[in-house]
């Protein structure tokens, strides 16, 4: 194992963990419920660790990415349902990320949001066109490490560490009205969805194929998923905790990603504000790339096209045209002027509905003796996997009623 490669892989996972949905929901969870939703972040992170590790292992051992195997195990009809559902979910998420990045650029420069969205698009298309896969992933992941400024800011405000630690214990705050209880449940489901977004599994497993992972890379896969995602999750929990400490007394439930940057400005001044905005920009832009490529991977793998950025764009023409078209579709959604926060809400909702369709084939494949041989799921991985699948199914069933009852978390 190359220590530098491992370190870069973990740091990339940390910097790429937070996207616009996690940013917004972490801040609102903190301002609305204090530290009471920390355990949900921790719980969901264990889920994405397990599923991420499985998807990387399947890619390394079976040498086929998740969506090839989804089609093979579920068949054409159900595979098509999964493909269309995940395309819609990832497209909305991609549009939310593009819109979020455009808002941050607007706050940094003063230039119009729509112009910044178009510019952002050009930069993202240029990035994927010019750079090979490893440097696409690494550049935005490492630049996303500016987000560590949120952890520094939390330390500087001297929060009640005992209360934060207490937040890791599963709990429901006492004395909540029925309305508030339903809203709490909605936030629980939303956090699970935001942390376990399906695009992360598609991107991660396809990335493993892009980087030519084999059995020798299984330890790296495990380390990246466990350590990288754990540290990334702590970043989300920092955002939640700062929001609880700073925004609750001020009656603010952050409505925009720009407000979250004040968590760093308040203890660290103007320099902190700029670092936070830059961190959010790269984290969200990186997520836009991941969601777009995840969609292009899904389409290409489902229909058996040549795919991957480990090849030149002209060597995989249909895949290239697919990711460009998907980016343009995401941009078109943003240019309609739809509220970016509404896109975030719908991204969360659609994603949690797709999660069971994504994770069931993955669980079955990771346990398959024929494909995985001695690297198939052991007792622990199977137990964790099936427990989380049950949780995801319950979350998917509850998502739409909770969304409607709470008007997207606003009631």
């Amino acid at each position: 194992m190359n220590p530098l490669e491992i370190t870069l892989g973990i740091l990339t996972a940390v910097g790429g963990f937070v996207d616009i949905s996690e940013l917004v929901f972490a801040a609102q969870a903190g301002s609305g419920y204090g530290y009471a939703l920390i355990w949900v972040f921790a719980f969901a992170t264990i889920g994405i660790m397990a599923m991420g590790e499985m998807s990387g292992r399947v890619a390394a051992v079976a040498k086929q990415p998740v969506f090839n195997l989804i089609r093979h195990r579920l068949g054409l009809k159900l595979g098509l349902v999964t493909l269309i559902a995940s395309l819609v979910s990832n497209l909305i998420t991609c549009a939310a990320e593009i819109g979020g990045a455009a808002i941050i650029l607007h706050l940094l420069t003063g230039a119009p949001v729509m112009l910044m969205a178009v510019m952002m698009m050009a930069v993202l298309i240029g990035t994927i066109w010019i750079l090979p896969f490893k440097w696409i992933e690494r550049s935005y992941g490492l630049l996303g490490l500016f987000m560590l400024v949120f952890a520094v800011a939390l330390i500087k405000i001297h929060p009640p560490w005992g209360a934060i630690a207490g937040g890791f214990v599963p709990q429901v705050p006492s004395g909540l009205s029925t309305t508030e209880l339903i809203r709490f449940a909605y936030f629980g489901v939303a956090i699970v969805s935001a942390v376990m977004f399906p695009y992360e599994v598609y991107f991660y497993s396809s990335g493993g194929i892009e980087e030519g992972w084999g059995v020798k890379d299984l330890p790296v896969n495990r380390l990246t998923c466990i350590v990288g995602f754990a540290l990334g999750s702590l970043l989300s929990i920092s955002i939640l905790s700062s929001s609880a400490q700073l925004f609750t007394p001020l009656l603010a439930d952050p409505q925009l990603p720009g407000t979250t940057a004040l968590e760093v400005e308040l203890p660290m001044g103007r320099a902190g504000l700029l670092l936070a905005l830059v961190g959010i920009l790269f984290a969200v832009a990186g997520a836009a790339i991941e969601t777009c490529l995840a969609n292009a991977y899904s389409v290409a793998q489902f229909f058996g096209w040549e795919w991957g950025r480990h090849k030149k764009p002209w060597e995989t023409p249909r895949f290239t045209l697919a990711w460009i078209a998907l980016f343009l579709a995401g941009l078109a959604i943003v240019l309609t002027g739809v509220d970016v926060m509404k896109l975030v809400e719908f991204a969360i909702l659609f994603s949690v509905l797709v999660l069971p369709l994504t994770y069931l084939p993955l669980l079955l494949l990771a346990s398959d003796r024929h494909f995985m041989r001695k690297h198939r799921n052991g007792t622990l991985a199977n137990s964790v996997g099936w427990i989380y699948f049950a949780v995801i199914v319950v979350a998917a069933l509850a998502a739409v009623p909770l969304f409607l009852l709470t008007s997207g978390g606003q009631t």
Partner: protein
Amino acid sequence: MSPRDKIQLMSGLLDLPILDKDWRYCGIVDDIEFEESGENALRVKALLVGPGAYRGRLPGWLFSIVRWIAGEHISRVPWDAIVEIGSAAVLKVSGDDYGLHHAEDKARRLVPKRGAI
């Protein structure tokens, strides 16, 4: 696994990705064609690749949409062109021999060949 071994046609072969001898993706096993082999016996004749092969596998209205978007062509890959079946069906020849790269080659004309590291 080789084509002579016993395989589960539906769970082991249908919807498997296809790789040619150059390890290029050539589509998915969209359907399987059989021929008679003696009395009351069938054997696999060819793998069918392309949107036209969805006809028997999708509801009529859905197949009409697929046909409108992607056409209904079918490429036939003879069974004896397969050298291995595992997580993919591997051909012993190039996919060009059966027109499996035709759509990819058409799309290549739209993609400029410059700028990438």
